[in-house]
Structures are given as structure tokens and as C-alpha cells.
């Protein structure tokens, strides 16, 4: 990477930035899930590394969350944007050099931000934990250069139309900057009280709603037609999906605070909009599953489709759960419990991670012109992720129901801790499986870069048979 930082743009090979982002994303995924496994171990076994302040749960939790969101997920998005945006416009990335610098500064900035969080320098607000000066670095040093590259690549495309994926990429890179600017305003302007609470959750909601969910969906709009060779089922449903994300996903932030003394009309409004998140979800899932018509055997045989369709299918429970858990009656029971933690992992470790993994698998093979080193290891990675995540999700959902019952019926706290203990162990097992699977993934992709079968010019990776 370093030799390209000061090279001329035309001397940097096409796809270099995407490859750097791809490998960075995998490394951050290992860091993030490793920290997750460590934190889960502390909840499952309270005596595990006890008494070391810097390794206390309070120091480590937010490092795990932001390593995953800004490291793994967002860098995988950047990787996808760096190769998919130009591909869909039949052109090159607007500035490969900007992309390489973007990747370099992103890694440095994130490492610095996470180090500060680990040291306890934090805003203290969940999801927007980073201190304000790091927020500014994220907005102007990370997100703006990424957006600029995406927008200019779309602008300089050599097609007349813009494919659905690029609508989402172009819009999401703009919207996420607004989310960071407005969502962090409590810290920029020292806002307190309900305003701070509302904006904190406006940020947290929209990082999911206007960044993670639409970009992950946009990736699958590329991967499924590209790999199956089928046309996207419906351009029209793409419109429905895109505009319903903008209208219905951006508005329900207040449903995270259903028990707070916010104006009741705002909660009513947000709660209806929260159920209506099912509108983009239904449009998205139906469009992608109908695109698979006649190619369902690839769900078993092809690793990118396996990851993508698993992610698409997870959008169904994710949005059903999300839509209903935020209604007054249900939220009263499960608010503040492990149920919410399970739901957050269904969104980030389930739905979106599977879609991003597909983008990284496909992108690295295409850009490196190397066939995947080992299908067996990729399948191992898939099942470690799927079984590990499912174990996590089910155990935390059950733990959440136990905690909810304990909360409502005023069961002594220690009794709740004892009752949920087996599920905390299961959570740790599931999370550790994901971590180990990711280590295998890094090895597989490293070997792919070094020893994967060379893909001849004009061919796509999935058109070649595996050699191992």
C-alpha cells in the first residue's frame, strides 16, 4: 500500500484500493470478533482476567462495537464501492490514489479512535462513543473522500443509465455524512437531556438505516445478477425499495426510546414507521429471491451466492423482529435486555455481514484475477459464521426473555444472572466460532492472493472449476 501513496494515479493498478480495503476489512473483522469473544467470555466467566482495569468490560465493549461497524462493515462497504461502482458504469474508479489514501487514513484513524476509546476517552453515548474530534476525522477524512470517489465515478460513468446498486451507493455515502454530522451534534454543541438521548438514538438508528442496511442490500443487487447471470427481476421494485428506505427507515428513531418522556405523538409516528421498515424489506427480499429463479442450485454450490442469499433470507426475521419489538406493548417487555443485543447482532453479524462477506469473496477473486484457494475452507468459514451466529442469536434472545421477565416481575438481579448463565456461555461459544471462522477466512484469502489459480482474461471467477 505504502508504495502507492505517493505514486501517480495512472501508475496505480486498477482495483488496488479495493484490494487494500478488502484485506483491511477482514483483519478488522478478526479484531472486532476477537474482542467480542473476549467480552463474551467476561460475561460468561466473571473471574476471567479479573482485576485488570484496562481489560474491564467497560473499556472493551465499545471498542468491539466500533471495530466491527467502522472496521469490518464499513471497510467492506468501501471495498465493494471501489470495485462495483466503476464496474457498473463500465469505467475505472475516479481516483485510485484517493482510494489508497482513503484506506490508509481510515486504518490509521480507526486505530487511533479505538485506542482512545480503550483508554476511556469517549463521549459516553452508545454507538456514537467516539470523541468529537475523531468524529470530525471520520466525516471529513474517511466518509467524504469515499463519497467523493463514488459520486465522481458515477458522474464519469460510460453508461447512460445508473444501476440500482449505484443509487444506493451514491445516496448512502451522502446520507451517512449527514447522520454523523447531525447525530453527533450533542457533543459538538453540548446538548443534554432528552435532546441528547433522542439524537444519540437518531444516530444509532440511521447508521443502520441509511448506511449499513441500504449498502448491504446494494451489494446483493450486484452479486446475485452478476454471479447467476440472471437479469435483476425488477427495476421497478428497485425503485420501491430505494424510496421506501429513504422515507420509512430514516424516520423511526424515537422507537428506541418508547419509555422515555418524548412527546407521545413522536413515539406514535415512529412506531408506525418502524413497522413500515417491512416495506423496503419485502421489496428487497422479493426482488432478490425472484432473481434467483432457475439458479437455486447455486445456493448450494456457489460460495458468493450462499453468503448472499443467506443474508437476504435473514432480512426476513430481522425486519419482522425489528418491526414488532419496537411497538409499545412488546418494547415494554424486552427493552434493555439481551433480546436487543440479539437483534443488533442479527442486523450486523447476520444480515449485513453475510452480504459483505460475499462482496469481499467475489471482489478479491475478481480484482486479484485469482480463483479462490480453497472452497472447503470457504464452506468451513460459511458454516462457522452461520452456526456461530445462530447460536449467539438464539441464546441471547432466550437470555433477553429471561431478563425481561426478571425486570417486569422484579426478580432479584442475582437470580436473573444465575438463570441466564448457560445462555451467556452459549453466546461466548457462538461468538468464538465466528472469530475462528474469520481467522480461517483470512488464511484462505491470503493463499488466494498468493497461490490461487489464475483467472484468464475475459473470464469470471465463478466460471472456473475449483482445483482444490
Amino acid at each position, binding site marked *: 500500500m505504502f508504495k502507492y501513496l505517493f505514486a501517480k494515479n495512472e501508475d496505480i493498478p486498477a482495483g488496488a484500493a479495493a484490494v487494500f480495503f478488502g484485506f483491511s476489512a477482514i483483519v478488522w473483522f478478526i479484531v472486532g470478533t476477537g474482542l467480542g469473544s473476549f467480552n463474551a467470555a467476561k460475561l460468561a466467566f466473571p473471574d476471567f482476567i479479573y482485576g485488570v482495569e484496562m481489560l474491564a468490560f467497560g473499556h472493551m465493549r465499545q471498542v468491539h462495537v466500533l471495530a466491527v461497524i467502522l472496521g469490518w462493515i464499513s471497510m467492506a462497504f468501501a471495498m465493494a464501492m471501489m470495485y462495483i461502482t466503476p464496474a457498473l458504469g463500465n469505467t475505472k474508479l475516479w481516483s485510485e490514489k484517493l482510494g489508497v489514501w482513503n484506506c490508509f487514513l481510515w486504518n490509521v484513524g480507526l486505530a487511533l479512535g479505538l485506542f482512545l476509546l480503550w483508554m476511556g476517552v469517549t463521549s459516553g453515548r452508545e454507538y456514537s462513543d467516539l470523541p468529537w474530534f475523531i468524529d470530525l476525522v471520520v466525516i471529513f477524512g474517511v466518509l467524504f473522500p469515499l463519497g467523493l470517489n463514488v459520486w465522481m465515478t458515477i458522474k464519469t460513468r460510460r453508461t447512460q443509465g445508473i444501476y440500482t446498486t449505484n443509487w444506493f451507493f451514491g445516496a448512502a455515502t451522502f446520507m451517512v455524512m449527514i447522520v454523523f454530522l447531525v447525530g453527533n451534534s450533542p457533543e459538538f454543541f453540548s446538548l443534554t437531556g432528552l435532546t441528547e438521548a433522542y439524537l444519540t438514538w437518531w444516530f444509532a438508528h440511521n447508521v443502520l438505516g441509511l448506511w449499513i442496511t441500504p449498502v448491504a442490500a446494494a451489494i446483493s443487487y450486484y452479486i446475485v445478477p452478476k454471479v447467476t447471470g440472471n437479469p435483476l427481476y425488477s427495476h421497478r421494485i428497485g425503485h420501491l425499495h430505494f424510496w421506501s428506505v429513504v422515507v420509512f427507515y430514516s424516520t423511526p428513531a424515537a422507537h428506541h426510546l418508547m419509555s422515555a418522556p418524548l412527546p*407521545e405523538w413522536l413515539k*406514535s409516528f415512529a*412506531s408506525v*414507521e418502524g413497522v413500515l421498515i417491512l416495506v423496503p424489506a419485502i421489496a428487497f427480499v422479493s426482488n432478490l429471491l425472484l432473481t434467483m429463479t432457475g439458479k437455486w442450485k447455486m445456493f448450494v454450490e456457489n460460495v458468493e451466492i450462499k453468503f448472499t442469499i443467506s443474508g437476504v433470507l435473514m432480512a426476513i426475521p430481522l425486519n419482522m423482529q425489528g418491526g414488532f419489538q419496537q411497538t409499545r406493548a412488546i418494547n415494554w417487555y424486552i427493552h434493555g435486555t439481551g433480546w436487543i443485543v440479539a437483534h443488533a447482532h442479527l442486523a450486523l453479524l447476520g444480515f449485513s455481514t453475510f452480504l459483505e462477506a460475499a462482496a469481499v469473496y467475489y471482489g478479491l477473486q475478481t480484482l486479484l484475477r485469482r480463483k479462490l484457494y480453497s472452497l472447503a475452507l470457504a464452506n468451513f468459514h460459511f458454516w462457522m459464521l452461520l452456526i456461530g451466529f445462530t447460536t449467539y442469536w438464539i441464546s441471547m434472545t432466550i437470555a433477553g426473555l429471561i431478563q425481561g421477565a426478571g425486570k417486569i416481575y422484579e426478580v432479584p438481579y442475582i437470580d436473573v444472572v444465575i438463570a441466564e448463565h448457560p445462555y451467556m456461555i452459549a453466546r461466548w461459544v457462538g461468538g468464538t466460532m465466528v472469530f475462528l471462522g474469520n481467522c480461517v477466512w483470512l488464511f484462505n484469502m491470503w493463499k488466494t492472493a498468493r497461490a490461487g489459480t489464475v483467472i484468464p482474461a475475459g473470464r469470471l471467477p465463478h466460471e472456473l472449476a475449483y482445483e482444490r
Partner: protein
Amino acid sequence: MAWKLDNPLHTMTSEDQNQKAVELWEAESLGGITEDNNRLPQPVLGLLVLTIITAFLITFPLWGQRPHAAMYEEYIQLMDSPEVKDLPDDKAMQFIVDKVKASNSKWSALQERHPLEMDDLRMIKDQVVELQKQGARLDEYTIVGNKVVIANFEGNFIDDKGTTRRERVQPWWDKGYTIDIVFILVFCVAVMIAVKRLPPFTFKPDHGKHH
């Protein structure tokens, strides 16, 4: 970008514009990806309509109604009755619940949803009695733990003994829902226009014409 509004459910674009779109659609390859022009399948359309209806039905405050002081007014009146005074707490509470239920209280459904014990009643009794003495509307006061506090709902302005103030009763319908309806209507109209400006769904692109 000529508009054609004589048959808006078919297309809102003139024939020549549609023809140009069709030619581009069939000739252009977006990074090797092509698109079909299928309409939303009708069962999926039905699911979307069901989702919108469900969104309103399931989010009414009715399903998350908070306990207010008026719900327990009849309970508190019965606490000092001779039948109750001589009973142990659990039987006394059961007697009160049965008696109020038999009287067809207007709060029966909420009372069932928010059951109390005698100790709970004792904690709020004096506060409720005090409010009664002041002539307050008890359904404007919420029970929060062992406290009876003015509810944080802000309804319409009402006239109260010559002064104007906000009504504090939890609403079953408020302006939040009205805004939702406006959002949904605007969204439906905007998306209808977006898709009806495309060639009609009867056009099936021929993907063999790509470069």
C-alpha cells in the same frame, strides 16, 4: 421528458419517450448486468397493504396503555370496606378485584393488564385520595412505581376552570398517526409516479441485444 396523463396507471410517459427508454434498456449493459421490467407480484402487493394496515393496528397506545390513577379509584374505595378490613391481604385483594369486575367497571381491561397487590394499593392510596380532594382528573395521572404523577402526554388544549391547559390523558390516536398517513400517501404517490414514468410493465426487455 414529455408527460402523458390520459392513462396514468399504464404509463405517464409519451410513446416516443418510452420507445427511447426501451431501446436504451435493451442496448445498455451495466457492468454485465441486465434488468427485467416485472411488476410487483400481486401477493407481495397484498403483503405490503397488510403491512401498512398492521402498522397502525399494532402500534396504538391502547396496546401499551400505562396504568393511571383512575383505574384504581374503585379498588381504593373498597379498601376501607368492612368486608375487606378483616381479610388477609391476598384474599382481600381477590375480593376487591372480583367485586370491581362484577360491577362492570369501565377500566376492567386495563385492570386485568395491570394487576396490583394490597401493598401496592397502600402505597398509592393517600396520593389518590389527595388528588380526589383537589378535584383532579385521575386519568391524567400515571402510576410510576409507588408514585402517582401527572402524565407526560400532551393532548389538545382544554378549558379547565377558566384556564387553558393541555389534556394529559393518553391518546389512542394522535397527530403522530396523522403525520404517518401523510407520509404514506406522499410516498405512494411519489413511487407510483417514479415507476409509471418507466415503460409499462407489459414491456419485456430482450437481453440478447446487449453489446
